[in-house]
């Protein structure tokens, strides 16, 4: 996979996303790297070196030490750069803003209470996002147990056969006027909601949070091949949910998009 030749149509996605040790900048204004897993345990020195890239900012390890010594203000400084990622982690899983905010808050409080247990073998943000993801997944499972008649989900959970694209609407470009619109957010949120929880969690970790396939597998305690299988289905299903509207039909109310089926 390294050094593979990329055709021009590949480079658009690959240069943007990379595939090895991708560092996600969820908010470029923060200039703060969100992910960097894989540092050997106990390599706090290395981790801090990476973290002090932001000039003048206290290193993560320093901040954690200060919090543990009772400096509560240092905890805010530690959490602030990850707020967005933490909310996204819970929002995309729970798909409900109020629940997601609640879960995100709970995750931050848990991180505070358990900070002494943080070993520094991943970045604080990774650890916090993992807590947030677990919190959201726990709530999602609880919600599903409450819905006794949620057989639709269960039924679809069982599907492990090949996913066949529903239509072949041509979606070459993301129309720039569609970005950052309320309609797009709604469309995304509905499309995410259409995924089963186990496909959604893989999709969210990999494509929204930019974890690698290996990290996603670790976070969920499943194998890499299961990640790939679920990711494929989730992506194709998301495409099916979004592509028909992407030619502008959901932003203009037009419904006559081109539907092409080979059969």
């Amino acid at each position, binding site marked *: 996979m390294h050094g593979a030749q990329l055709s021009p149509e590949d480079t658009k996605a690959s240069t943007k996303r990379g595939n090895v040790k991708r560092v996600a900048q969820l908010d470029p204004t923060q200039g703060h790297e969100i992910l960097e897993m894989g540092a050997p345990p106990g390599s706090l020195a290395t981790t801090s070196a990476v973290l002090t890239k932001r000039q003048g900012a206290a290193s993560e390890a320093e901040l954690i030490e200060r919090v543990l010594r009772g400096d509560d203000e240092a905890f805010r400084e530690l959490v602030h750069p990850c707020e967005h990622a933490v909310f996204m982690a819970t929002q995309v899983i729970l798909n409900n803003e109020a629940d997601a905010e609640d879960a995100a808050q709970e995750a*931050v409080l848990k991180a505070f209470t358990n900070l002494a247990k943080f070993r520094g073998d991943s970045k604080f943000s990774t650890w916090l996002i993992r807590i947030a993801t677990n919190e959201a997944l726990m709530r999602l499972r609880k919600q599903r147990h409450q819905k006794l008649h949620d057989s639709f989900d269960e039924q679809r959970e069982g599907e492990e056969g090949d996913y066949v694209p529903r239509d072949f609407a041509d979606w070459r470009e993301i129309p720039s006027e569609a970005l950052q619109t309320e309609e797009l957010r709604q469309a995304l949120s509905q499309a995410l909601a259409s995924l089963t929880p186990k496909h959604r969690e893989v999709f969210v970790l990999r494509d929204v949070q930019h974890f690698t396939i290996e990290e996603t597998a670790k976070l969920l305690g499943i194998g890499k091949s299961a990640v790939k299988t679920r990711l494929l289905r989730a992506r194709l299903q998301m495409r099916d949910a979004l592509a028909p509207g992407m030619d502008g039909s959901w932003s203009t109310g037009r419904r006559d998009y081109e539907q092409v089926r080979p059969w």
Partner: protein
Amino acid sequence: MVMEISCEEVWREVSNYLDDEITPELRARMREHFKGCKHCTAVLDGTRNVVQLVGDAKSFELPAGFSDRLYQKLDRKLSKDSQL
């Protein structure tokens, strides 16, 4: 001359193609297929767009007042803890 590949096989691998999780040989076969199949090209483009779209942080916004409420909650917890 690369060996032909069916549409069904392409759909099974389109996600791995985007993640570069396939062999160079399969990659070459798929690329050859995309050249002649507009349906599969539409699937590839659309899937790539999904990945780009959701990967863009601008697609998800923090609710207004999120930070304030978070730190208020944290402060409440801190003052409760210090009373113990």
